[in-house]
């Protein structure tokens, strides 16, 4: 069944598939953990019940997302060995300790305090409970730091030597961890996680503002999310620009692919807005371009020369069409986020933040944008690293396990089936929880969940769950 494929391609497909699913959950839970800490902190400080209610609402959603992140993450920690054993043997001495530190300093911290955060409020008191929430939030950030150090080292490796067995041996750990692209990637990813969460929280708030179910709760979270978006989206665009300049310095071929520059431009390169990459003929068809703008962005000069992929041997070029498109998707979504943030600021200034239904509709539509942007960004940086796993030093083709295509292929099919089934169900449950924001305690006259009970099984379940929330 899998004879037509080679094991390397199947292993790459498996990695891409499982890591893409996995990254969705941390991207959301990093931001949500921080948001929960803020909500609980505000509750302890201001004693306004709306913060506690929002905390409980998002806590249940966090538990689901975090659980999916854990189980999809375990898959990643074993896949290096099953499918990429040569990589593991040769790069393990460097990547391994970084991931070891991630487990020791972050995973245990998150897991140890998650139980207390989810189940322990009545057992430990408010102060310690807040501490547990903080530890979970800090844990997610520490985890991001280590894994991005590992990933960045693969992009911009330094501080190593080679031994006789062909292994990468650490020579200077400081240089390994603080490799050139690490600070940029860390900032870019953490901000992306915060934006992703802000968009989701904002969409849920906007949805319930439109439905008028719980104006106080919905309005509070909507306002918080829009502040986050307004402040972070411009910073993120700046951080992305800096990250791009760093990539130009250390991985020029990746930037050439992102820009679609097949040809070198000695006197100022154009910015290609759109076009159809024609990798076979090494050109962009139907390109819509602005002259010299690329040189201005990347070199801060209108006539600065920019080398193109014609300087890179064909077999060492990344797959341009994928990188070209994923980069544009990410950038477009980034500017859409900026637009939503600025629009919300304008509405806030006009005292229309809670009333402008078009803003709310736009926020609902933009709810998943963060996830798409994160995936597009990761595709850009990871596919742009090809054909290497360790940039410039170890080819992807030389990293794979000596394993039969049939084994990789059948495990890939099982992962696809199970992931869509299991994470599809989880996403459905999360969306259902999001659509069931409990009503504000005092307010609308038509409030009265007891009276509506029994009309449909769905509503009854919702009320049962809500009853459970108060018991915690």
């Amino acid at each position: 069944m899998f004879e037509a494929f080679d094991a390397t391609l199947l292993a790459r497909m498996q990695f891409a598939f499982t890591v893409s699913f996995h990254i969705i959950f941390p991207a959301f839970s990093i931001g949500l953990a921080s948001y929960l800490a803020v909500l609980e902190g505000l509750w302890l400080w201001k004693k306004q019940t709306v913060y506690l209610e929002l905390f409980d609402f998002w806590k249940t959603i966090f538990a689901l997302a975090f659980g999916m992140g854990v189980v999809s993450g375990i898959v990643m920690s074993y896949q290096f060995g099953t499918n990429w054993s040569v990589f593991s043997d040769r790069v393990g001495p460097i990547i391994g300790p970084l991931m070891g530190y991630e487990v020791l300093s972050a995973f245990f911290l998150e897991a140890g305090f998650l139980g207390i955060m989810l189940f322990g409020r009545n057992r430990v008191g408010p102060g310690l409970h807040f501490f547990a929430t903080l530890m979970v939030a800090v844990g997610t950030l520490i985890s991001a730091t280590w894994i991005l150090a590992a990933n960045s080292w693969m992009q911009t490796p330094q501080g190593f030597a080679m031994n006789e067995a062909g292994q990468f041996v650490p020579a200077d750990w400081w240089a390994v961890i603080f490799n050139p692209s690490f600070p940029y990637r860390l900032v870019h990813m953490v901000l992306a996680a915060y934006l992703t969460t802000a968009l989701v929280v904002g969409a849920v708030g906007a949805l319930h503002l439109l439905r008028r179910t719980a104006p106080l709760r919905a309005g509070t979270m909507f306002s918080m999310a829009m502040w986050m978006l307004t402040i972070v989206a411009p910073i993120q665009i700046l951080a992305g620009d800096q990250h791009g300049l760093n990539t130009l310095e250390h991985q020029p071929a990746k930037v050439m692919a992102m820009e679609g520059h097949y040809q070198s431009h000695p006197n100022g390169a154009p910015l290609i807005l759109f076009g159809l990459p024609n990798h076979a003929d090494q050109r962009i068809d139907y390109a819509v371009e602005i002259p010299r703008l690329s040189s201005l962005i990347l070199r801060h000069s209108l006539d600065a020369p920019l080398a193109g992929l014609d300087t890179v041997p064909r077999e060492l070029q990344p797959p341009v069409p994928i990188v070209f498109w994923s980069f544009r998707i990410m950038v477009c979504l980034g500017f859409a986020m900026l637009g939503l943030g600025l629009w919300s600021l304008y509405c806030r200034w006009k005292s229309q933040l809670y009333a402008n239904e078009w803003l709310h509709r736009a926020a609902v539509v933009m709810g998943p944008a963060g996830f798409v942007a994160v995936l597009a960004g990761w595709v850009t940086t990871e596919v742009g690293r090809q054909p290497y796993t360790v940039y410039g030093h170890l080819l992807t083709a030389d990293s794979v396990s000596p394993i039969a295509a049939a084994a990789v292929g059948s495990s890939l099919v099982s992962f696809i089936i199970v992931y869509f089934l299991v994470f599809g169900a989880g996403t459905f449950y999360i969306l259902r929880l999001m659509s069931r924001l409990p009503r504000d305690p005092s307010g609308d006259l038509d409030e009265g969940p007891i009276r509506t009970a029994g009309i449909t099984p769905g509503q009854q379940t919702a009320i049962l769950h809500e009853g459970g929330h108060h018991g915690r």
Partner: protein
Amino acid sequence: MAVDLAFLWAAIIAFAVLAYVILDGFDLGVGILFPLFPEKRHRDVMMNSVAPIWDGNETWLVLGGGGLMAVFPLAYATILPALYAPIIAMLLGLIFRGVAFEYRWRTKRAEELWNWAFAGGSAVVALAQGIMLGALVQGIPVENRAYAGGWWDWLTPFSIATGLAVLIGYALLGATWLVMKTTGDLREKARTLSSIAAIATLVAMGVVSLWTPFLEPLYLARWFSWPTAIFSVIVPLLVLGCFLLLAIGLRDQHDSQPFLAALGLFVLGYAGIGISFYPYIVPTSLTIWDAAAPQESLAFLLFGALILVPVILVYTGYAYWVFRGKVDPHEGYH
């Protein structure tokens, strides 16, 4: 060499794997026993007894995998391809049972589906881990720093036997955990199941122990030649002692003694395996020194492990302490 870092790391990895086996062992065991408790009120309590801690328990598995890659990369790079199919099965099982902790409370209509995901996933994980253990013990061929066997080599009568043994053993851990954490008719039933599982575990340990020495001349020499043959007397005696404590604990209605005695059985079984194949990490192809990462890697992570592992043990212990005592059936999660 002043300090043998590879040996130190072998001890730490061995500790992490043991911590994983006994900790996740009992919460997997609770899942394995799920089908024997058809009543929803029992299942709710069973799940709540492990819900706050299962995630921490499973983190030891990540440490086992990640740590192995960091400090014994060659072992990681040869064992995992050799055990390809059971590892994939384990990962898929872990997904199903892991999400069931949350999903089960999020739906009425599909609750039964996630009950089966929890039970089936837990059983598959236990079987797969047992098969992996058996496949490791029976040996993994390595040539030129790569796994040199076929992709069905892990499947033998011996590995099936170890798979069943681990399944039974985890069920015992789960049953004695429930004796400790629950009350009433649930506890009574767990007590009965503990007795059955204890006898089955003893039989399984006996079968595997008698089988192992005949797989490999090295193991035979270990158990039947001086001075290591002394363990052939000590280990079985300690096993019988633990079994006795377990039986008495169950008879006299002790809460924690049966669970602790069951843990003792696992520690002894684990030690027995270690005695068989030390200093090999991939029997009988690679010793811990063959597979060890360069000194710089070992030292760098050791620094962190020596500080962080004790801290982890403290707050993990604290989390267990917060949720100590019997599970209150009315203090539900959702």
